[in-house]
């Protein structure tokens, strides 16, 4: 077992889906069966990634495996050094796990899609796109530098654009794809500028080199503010991809894509890329940057949880729940609970993928009915779907024995610790509120969909359990939502292999005096510690330990509370939800309409830009074209040639110049009267004028 094997395998895993993509896209028309080839490729990639994961965790557990080559090399004048832009692969534990997660979900989605997408006009192309997406996502995972990260980041954007807009004949789908890409680009710009800041200072894109330099006290442009800015800017990329407020608007719309795509992209992988990015750059985040991240994460999770409460589209609920959970992870990173953020990323990937695929199963069975108001009682018809869905719901709600419980609890503990150390108590409060809301709306979803009486009998009658290619992935994913895969202790992940052996908070960080400086004076003594260690994290870890059980308890309580309310509302119907909604009309409407954020954007930024561009276009055509043409004299002459003058003689300046130059030409013309005596008079006058002008007395 050598490092190079792992590298080679990872690269192989990376390129397998690309190979699949090119093969299928070019030959798919001739050989429609090629989708099977794509599935096979993904399966083999999955197997290889399992092997890589195993090898990495077993043989090189603590060592990061890095390989790189020079892609572009050039002198960098006027600074006088040589820029080598290296591309490379970095397989640490996080990457290895992500490799596995991505491949797993991707493979399952591939398999699931065989049935789900059957009969679609662009069946093979769909698989090709999936391959492309997987390739891009894997690229993000294994890269060792920001540039490649950005490259694959954009490729992910492209493939998600293709997949969301897969049913391009639906205008809404095409719109959603466009929206996703453009909104993501906004974040990407920030990320790009952040990368530029780092590159300008360190002449490299490689994570480790940059971090080393920062750790060595070499701050961007010599100032900590720039470091903060760089962190926040790069984080903007994550805001886009992980659908954080204010760029969260694309994700719910992206549900226009096929449901397996939603499971793959919008639950487990693409949106997780943002979180992954932040884990990658975690070590260079300053305290201010982290606070910003935490606040954004918390706010996002709260906001989307409130929206999820009232949504009636099964996928929309899941979508908002995803945004909310992503906010959780981001918040977790912001408060410093690095491991739990990543942990939640993994667990969430599984159970959310399961939920999406489950909903896909339901939609499939209900003949593309997505409104939960029209469902109900599906439990009997679709038992496998129901049970897997339920397990995942429990997991997302944070019920013990599930993976979700473990990770969520960790995050909440982290926020509590953060609150205690810094006094920002709003963040833990938000965290717990969201936990309650999550439990509520997820159970609302389950109850309305699977329990109770069917609302649409016709569709209900035709509903049936989906075939095994669809249910098998559900089963696998729901099983993976059980605690045992992560830790032997169902109530504490700390002792588990995931926390203890596999993933650790990075040790090398930004200069210590920039980190957690808002943690009041309690860390004064820690400053003496060795440079480059996360000295404060000792304190933080201790505080987290302190917060562990309170957090667990409280999270259980709030989750239970949420579930209870859901039962009261929808199973026992003690309270009429509609009446309540009537009472709280304003809130209800707001929530239902996503707090009108889309509309706000539409009215301000989008139509603003469009209006501005129309004005500019007008300006360009009328003013610039007119004025720079130099003269409308040009216009005039040109138009005289062809008789377009009327259309082009525009007002103002233009008219004036036209008049003037026309006048000049015309006056000259007038001199030529055709009468020879007039000419002679002109000659005599000219003689006199010449004499007077040039030889005064």
């Amino acid at each position, binding site marked *: 077992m050598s490092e190079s094997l792992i590298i080679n395998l990872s690269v192989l895993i990376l390129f397998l889906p690309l190979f699949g993509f090119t093969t299928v896209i070019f030959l798919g028309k001739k050989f429609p069966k090629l989708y099977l080839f794509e599935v096979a490729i993904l399966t083999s990639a999955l197997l290889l990634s399992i092997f890589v994961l195993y090898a990495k965790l077993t043989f090189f557990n603590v060592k990061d495996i890095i390989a790189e080559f020079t892609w572009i090399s050039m002198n960098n004048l006027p600074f006088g050094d040589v820029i080598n832009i290296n591309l490379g692969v970095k397989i640490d534990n996080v990457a290895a796990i992500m490799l596995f997660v991505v491949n797993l979900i991707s493979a399952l989605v591939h398999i699931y899609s065989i049935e789900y997408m059957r009969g679609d006009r662009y069946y093979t192309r769909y698989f090709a796109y999936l391959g492309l997406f997987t390739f891009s996502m894997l690229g993000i995972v294994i890269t060792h530098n920001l540039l490649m990260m950005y490259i694959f980041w954009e490729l992910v954007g492209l493939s998600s654009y293709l997949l969301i807009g897969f049913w391009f004949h639906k205008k809404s789908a095409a719109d959603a794809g466009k929206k996703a890409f453009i909104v993501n680009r906004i974040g990407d710009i920030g990320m790009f500028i952040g990368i530029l800041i780092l590159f300008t200072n360190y002449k490299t894109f490689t994570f480790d080199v940059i971090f080393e330099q920062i750790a060595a006290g070499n701050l961007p442009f010599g100032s900590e503010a720039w470091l903060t800015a760089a962190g926040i800017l790069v984080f903007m990329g994550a805001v886009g991809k992980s659908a954080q407020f204010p760029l969260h608007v694309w994700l719910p719309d992206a549900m226009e894509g096929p449901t397996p795509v939603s499971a793959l992209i919008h639950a487990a992988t693409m949106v997780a890329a943002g979180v992954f990015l932040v884990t990658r750059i975690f070590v260079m985040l300053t305290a201010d940057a982290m606070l910003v991240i935490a606040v954004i994460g918390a706010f996002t999770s709260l906001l989307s949880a409130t929206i999820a409460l009232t949504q009636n589209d099964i996928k929309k609920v899941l979508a908002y729940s995803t945004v909310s959970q992503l906010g959780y992870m981001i918040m977790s990173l912001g408060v410093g609970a690095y491991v739990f953020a990543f942990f939640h990323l993994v667990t969430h990937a599984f159970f959310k993928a399961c939920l999406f695929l489950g909903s896909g199963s339901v939609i499939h069975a209900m003949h593309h009915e997505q409104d939960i108001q029209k469902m109900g009682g599906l439990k009997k018809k679709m038992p496998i779907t129901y049970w897997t869905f339920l397990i995942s719901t429990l997991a997302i709600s944070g019920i013990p024995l599930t993976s979700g419980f473990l990770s969520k609890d960790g995050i909440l503990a982290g926020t509590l610790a953060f609150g205690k150390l810094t006094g920002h108590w709003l963040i833990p409060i938000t965290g717990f509120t969201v936990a309650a809301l999550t439990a509520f709306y997820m159970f609302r979803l389950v109850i309305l969909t699977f329990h109770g009486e069917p609302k649409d009998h016709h569709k209900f009658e035709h509903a049936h359990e989906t075939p095994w290619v669809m249910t098998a992935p559900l089963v696998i994913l729901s099983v993976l939502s059980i605690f045992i895969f992560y830790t032997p202790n169902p109530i504490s992940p700390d002792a588990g292999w995931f926390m203890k052996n596999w993933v650790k908070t990075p040790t090398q960080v930004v200069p210590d005096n920039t980190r957690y400086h808002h943690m009041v004076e309690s860390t004064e003594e820690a400053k003496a510690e060795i440079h480059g260690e996360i000295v404060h994290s000792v304190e933080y870890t201790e505080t987290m330990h302190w917060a562990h059980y309170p957090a667990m308890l409280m999270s259980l309580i709030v989750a239970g509370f949420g579930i209870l309310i859901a039962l009261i509302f929808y199973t026992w119907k003690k309270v009429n939800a509609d009446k309540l909604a009537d009472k709280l009309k304003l809130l209800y409407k707001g929530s239902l309409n996503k707090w009108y954020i889309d509309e706000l954007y539409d009215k301000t930024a989008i139509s603003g830009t469009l209006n501005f561009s129309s004005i500019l276009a007008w300006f360009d055509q009328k003013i610039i074209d007119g004025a720079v043409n130099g003269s409308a004299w040009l216009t005039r002459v040109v138009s005289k040639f062809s008789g377009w003058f009327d259309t082009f003689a525009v007002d103002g300046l233009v008219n004036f110049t036209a008049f003037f130059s026309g006048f000049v030409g015309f006056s000259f*013309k007038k001199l*030529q*009267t*055709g*009468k*020879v*005596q007039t000419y*002679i*008079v002109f000659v*005599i006058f000219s003689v006199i004028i010449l004499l007077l002008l040039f030889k005064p007395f």
Partner: protein
Amino acid sequence: MLQVGLTHFLVVSAILFSFGIYGIVTRKNAVMVLMGIELVLNAANINFIAFAKYGNFGFSGQMIALFVIILAAAEAAIALAIVLNIYKTFLSVNVDEIDHLKE
């Protein structure tokens, strides 16, 4: 002042010249315009001869005058031919009506 000198001849020439110009620019009849031109040439001739005499420039002035007179004759011949031609074409010798070529 009244004693005749160079200036007197020159003034006569100047007046003749101006009358010539006046005739050229105001007369309608092409022939009359030609008369104006003859006046101008005569004015120049007076100048030459007067200068030659008063400046003691020898006979060059008179020679020039001689040549100019002959030349005027040639010119008049050509001019009259052209005027006749015009009359044939336009049935008129009104200079200000012959303005088809313009602008």
